């Protein structure tokens, strides 16, 4: 046999044949569909049922959406244009756009002010949300509350300036004394700021101009989606520090402080937000001095902040509890005192663990700002249910308005939760 190797044999290939493509059923879309849609008879049935559901939803909504009318003065006009065919009357959005966004009382010549504040908000939030940005941008973040207050409410510029001066003086005092003891620096700073605000309160009437550069807009004129945004941003940013304080208080070894925090947190978490808003609208006024009227917006901010602070405190408590005991002991063995241990070792780690929970609370809180429509504040839901649906022009345009409200909330809430997932991946320092 060995001598036959020299010449060619008919059934032995001398060169490799090119790879042939996989059978149609074992690769590409067909295989994917077999694996993911028609794996078993039951699965195929499920797929068909799901396809039918998708068809039902699309066939009901697509013509309505695509056939929408964007230019009309009233529902009657809309129907005339549509002439009986199915179609949305999105004209209500274009016509009532300012009302949906700014409410129906905000002076229309001043719409640029909230818009500027809104755009500034992105610049102010960027360095907090994305750490890679230059740290100098934090100056904008620090100035933003004062600038936004001045833009939205208008009036004399001296109110935010004096407020800012108070904060700066407080910070300087804090920075001077924090090396000695955190408590002295912290409370000294607060006291200094209070003193500055008290003194400037006397100066204010003398420097207030007759005709301020920006006309003053009272809080009750705020409305629309702007109100939801303002409540959401203000209350979330106020409730995070308060929540941290409550969580630390609940972990405290001092029984009195611990019990104050426990009772506060459990009380707030036990009642619905609506009852707290009732407190804000009908009850809180009784707790302020008789000669003083406190703005409804401020009362609502106080109650919503307390509400979300209690929930954030529970989230952060979970983060604190999740830290290994060794971290606390390590801080002690380094000779750090309580505030140093918390600021340098415990809180950075605990807050990192708590981020998803805090974001959940923030999303929930932002959705809950719609509840203020129940105590007759005209946020976006209040605007839709009140002035817009009650007007003779647009009586009966439910779906377009509700779709709009759904869309604006979905975009923001979904965006926040996507950001939180990105942040979790970014902050993950463990090995995978």
């Amino acid at each position: 046999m060995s001598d036959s190797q020299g010449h060619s044999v008919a059934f032995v290939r001398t060169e490799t044949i090119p790879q042939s493509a996989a059978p149609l059923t074992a690769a590409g879309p067909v295989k994917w569909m077999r694996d993911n849609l028609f794996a078993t008879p039951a699965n195929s049935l499920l797929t068909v049922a799901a396809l039918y559901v998708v068809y039902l939803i699309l066939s009901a909504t697509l013509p309505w959406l695509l056939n929408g009318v964007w230019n009309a003065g009233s529902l009657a006009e809309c129907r005339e244009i549509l002439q009986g065919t199915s179609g949305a009357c999105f004209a209500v959005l274009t016509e009532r756009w300012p009302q949906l966004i700014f409410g129906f009382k905000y002076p229309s010549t001043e719409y640029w002010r909230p818009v500027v504040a809104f755009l500034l908000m992105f610049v102010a939030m960027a360095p907090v949300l994305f750490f890679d940005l230059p740290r100098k941008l934090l100056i904008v973040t620090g100035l933003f509350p004062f600038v936004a207050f001045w833009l939205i409410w208008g009036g004399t510029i001296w109110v935010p300036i004096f407020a800012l001066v108070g904060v700066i003086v407080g910070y300087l005092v804090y920075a001077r004394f924090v090396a000695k003891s955190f408590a002295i620096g912290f409370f000294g700073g607060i006291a200094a700021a209070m003193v500055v605000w008290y003194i400037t309160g006397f100066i204010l009437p003398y420097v207030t101009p007759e005709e301020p550069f920006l006309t003053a807009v009272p809080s009750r004129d705020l409305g629309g989606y702007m109100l939801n945004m303002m409540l959401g941003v203000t209350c979330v940013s106020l409730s995070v520090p308060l929540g941290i304080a409550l969580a630390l208080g609940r972990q405290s070894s001092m029984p009195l402080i611990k019990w104050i925090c426990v009772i506060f947190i459990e009380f707030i978490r036990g009642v619905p937000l609506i009852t707290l808003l009732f407190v804000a609208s009908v009850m809180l006024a009784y707790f302020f001095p008789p000669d003083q009227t406190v703005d409804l917006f401020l009362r609502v901010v106080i109650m919503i902040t307390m509400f979300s602070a209690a929930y954030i405190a529970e989230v952060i408590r979970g983060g604190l509890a999740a830290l290994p005991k060794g971290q606390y002991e390590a801080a002690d063995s380094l000779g750090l005192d309580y505030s140093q241990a918390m600021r340098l070792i415990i809180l950075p780690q605990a807050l990192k663990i708590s981020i998803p929970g805090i974001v959940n609370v923030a999303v929930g809180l932002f959705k809950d700002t719609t509840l203020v429509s129940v105590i007759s504040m005209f946020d976006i839901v209040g605007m839709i249910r009140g002035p817009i649906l009650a007007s003779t022009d647009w009586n009966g345009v439910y779906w377009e308005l509700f779709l709009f409200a759904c869309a604006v909330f979905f975009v923001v809430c979904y965006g926040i939760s996507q950001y939180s997932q990105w942040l979790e991946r970014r902050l993950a320092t463990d090995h995978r």
Partner: protein
Amino acid sequence: MLLNDTRYRSLTLQAIAAILLALSLGYIVSNLLANLAAQDLNISFEFLGSPAGYDINQTLIDYTSQSSNMRAAVVGIINTLLVAFLACITATVFGVIAGVLRLSNNWLVAKLMSFYVEIFRNIPVLIWILIIYTIMTAVMPGARSYLGDDPDIDLLGGLFAFTNRGVYIPAPFFTSGIGGEEGSVINWLIVIAALFGSLFATRFMTARANKIQEDTGVRPNTLFINLAIWLVPLVVLAFILGLSWDIPDPLANRFNLRGGIQIGAPLIALWFALSIYTGAFIAENVRAGIQAVSKGQTEAASALGLRPNRTMSLVVLPQALRVIIPPLISQYLNITKNSSLAIAVGYADITATLGGITLNQTGRAIECVLLLMLFYLTISLLISAVMNVYNNAMKLKER
């Protein structure tokens, strides 16, 4: 200084906190008293005894506009508990189905379920309640479409009517039970007692089956006997008590349907909206719970020779439930608290009666809001207590 001496620091700080707390409480109370004095008001709960003076359209107990404010509040409490109970059941059903299907290996179904969860979790529940309320009131036909000899729409199966005022369903009643034609609550108590009896009997049967399996290795089939235990007493009771159905009648009246049970549009809107909204959250909890059971558990069960359904019921589910149930209970708590949004669609729950109409009519803001908070606090403390008992019972018992 007291603050720098570790022996006294804690006491000093607490003393400072106590003084600050007392000062701020004193300030608030003195403001409250001054405000009340200025408006010539006092704190008193006498208004609870006076006639309420308003009607409630959906009540489970007897109530007229002459009943006291207290009774209106009780009606509200019962309505709150009713909608919370109904919504908890349906939300669990929706959530479990969506959560399990989201893990399905069918791509389309999994995507549809993620779509459902994301859409409903990211839009306020108040908007959902309003949308479903609008569907109920603006899209459903009026009751008149069902009326007359030749109605525009026939009753569904001759039994159900969906109108813009609510859904009409047949009402069961007993013709020959205690209390005769008038009927009595006792009849229903008998039925409930029978159901409890069946529950205990089936539990006994299961325990017996377990024992036989332990002794002999063969598990007796309990399916049919359990079905019989549930059904036979009910059928017998239905015959003895003379069960009959009061069907909505399109011919009795020219303006509205008569007979049957009317489930008002506000109740349906609230019930359904809370169910689908919370269902999306429960779906996430269910998915997380199932994914928390490691694959090794399933593989170990197969290695022991368990069939897939036994693996599910004996190995995966008990471990997944340990993860699922605590967040599930807090979702139930959320449903109860969110049911206070009833006020937006005019369902007479406790917030709408005590915190709404009674508050506005009597002007007793402080008393009403305090009672309202007390009610919700009691409910949530009760639910927390149940959760603690469960957590302790389910704690991993490590040796």
